């Protein structure tokens, strides 16, 4: 994955916090994915504006005890592309 690329939710996908489920979810036509903590934290930074390397830097600042996050973030974003949740431009 190119760190310079910018991830964006695909059209029709919505990311939001669900208080009853106490988690972030991804909503799309007739579907919903309940996201775990790290997936939720990563997608919360996907705004269609900032490239992957900036997202990684932001998350590393948010979670200073987690160590380097590039590999995890890239792996999750690759998976999200595979699921057709996001697209990279």
């Amino acid at each position, binding site marked *: 994955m190119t760190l310079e690329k910018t991830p964006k939710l695909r*059209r029709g996908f*919505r990311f939001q916090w669900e208080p*009853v489920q106490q988690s972030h979810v991804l909503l799309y*036509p*007739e579907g919903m994915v309940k996201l775990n903590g790290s997936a939720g934290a990563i997608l919360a930074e996907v705004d269609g504006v900032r490239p992957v390397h900036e997202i990684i830097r932001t998350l590393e600042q948010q979670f200073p005890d987690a160590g380097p996050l590039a590999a995890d973030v890239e792996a999750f974003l690759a998976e999200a592309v595979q699921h057709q949740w996001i697209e990279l431009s």
Partner: protein
Amino acid sequence: MTAPAGQVGPPLWLLAELTYRCPLQCPYCSNPLDYASQEHELNTEQWLDVLRQGRAMGAAQLGFSGGEPLVRQDLPELIAGARELGYYTNLITSGLGLTEGKVQAFAEAGLDHIQVSFQASDPELNNAVAGSRKAFEQKLAMARAVKAAGYPMVLNFVIHRHNIHQMNDILALCENLDADYVELATCQYYGWAFKNREGLMPSKAQLVQAEQEVNGYRDDLRNRGRPMKVIFVTPDYYEERPKACMNGWGNLFLTVAPDGTALPCHSARLLPIDFPNVQSQSLNDIWYHSPGFNHYRGDSWMPEPCRSCDEKDKDFGGCRCQAYLLTGNADNADPVCSKSPHHDRILAARTAADHATAGLDDLIYRNARNSKLLYRG
């Protein structure tokens, strides 16, 4: 009958059947056979109240369906209300009654997704099944308008013995319309489709051929790098184990019928169970405490062979409506299961499908006249 607190999760999906009115007459309609005698509909404020209650309980996915939901003049208001509450809003429509202006207005109200249903890939068959002469052309125009307005494009085709040979044509049409998702949903035999089962159910040979075509088309899409998702729902009548219907009774799905009757699925109204109405009880009471919703929760209600079956946590004994329609007792194992003592009824339906000769003219079309005829006596 109250379920122990903490064991029942929230109703994450809410289906609002706004009306049973519809300009089409599809012979596989999932509405009740006696829909014509149930004319009462909740008003706008009552629907908004249902939506507020559902959202507070955790519902996130909301479907507006019917009938044809577009006949409700207050649809834009309901969409706007739902979107404001935080729902992901799906409109499930035939496309009849839709205009480019409405597509735009719904987008402005915050509608997330419009699913347009088709009956076939060509106008003659489509219009014959729909019982409407202008349906196909209108559907094409509206599918294009939906796409142009930037919605994700989901096209739905109900598949039966009269259009199951059209898989390649249907998928080519979807690609031509630039669909993002295609649902090829084989008829489920409830409501009008159960009444017409012999005239609708494909033969095993037809099904095998269709699956091959769909898989071939999927490979082709992948090779061409085209991200159109194709979902093919095969008929459970050709399975040996039942489907985990609705992911479990009263587990995720809550349907509210036009008159406010709350149901664990849109077919459950046919069961001999008293279901509560949102006009006399809160949605919370209905979901967690009503006898109707607790009736088939858990597994203590199960007779054999389900009771001692090691797969009961996987499929919950299948579908209660199917058990009722095929055996006369909704407690029984879904006869789709080869362990069911009533599995012969499924086998008989398969044999009938191999020899069926009924044409489209022999089907009973879903309209007010037929509904009243069926329920006069």
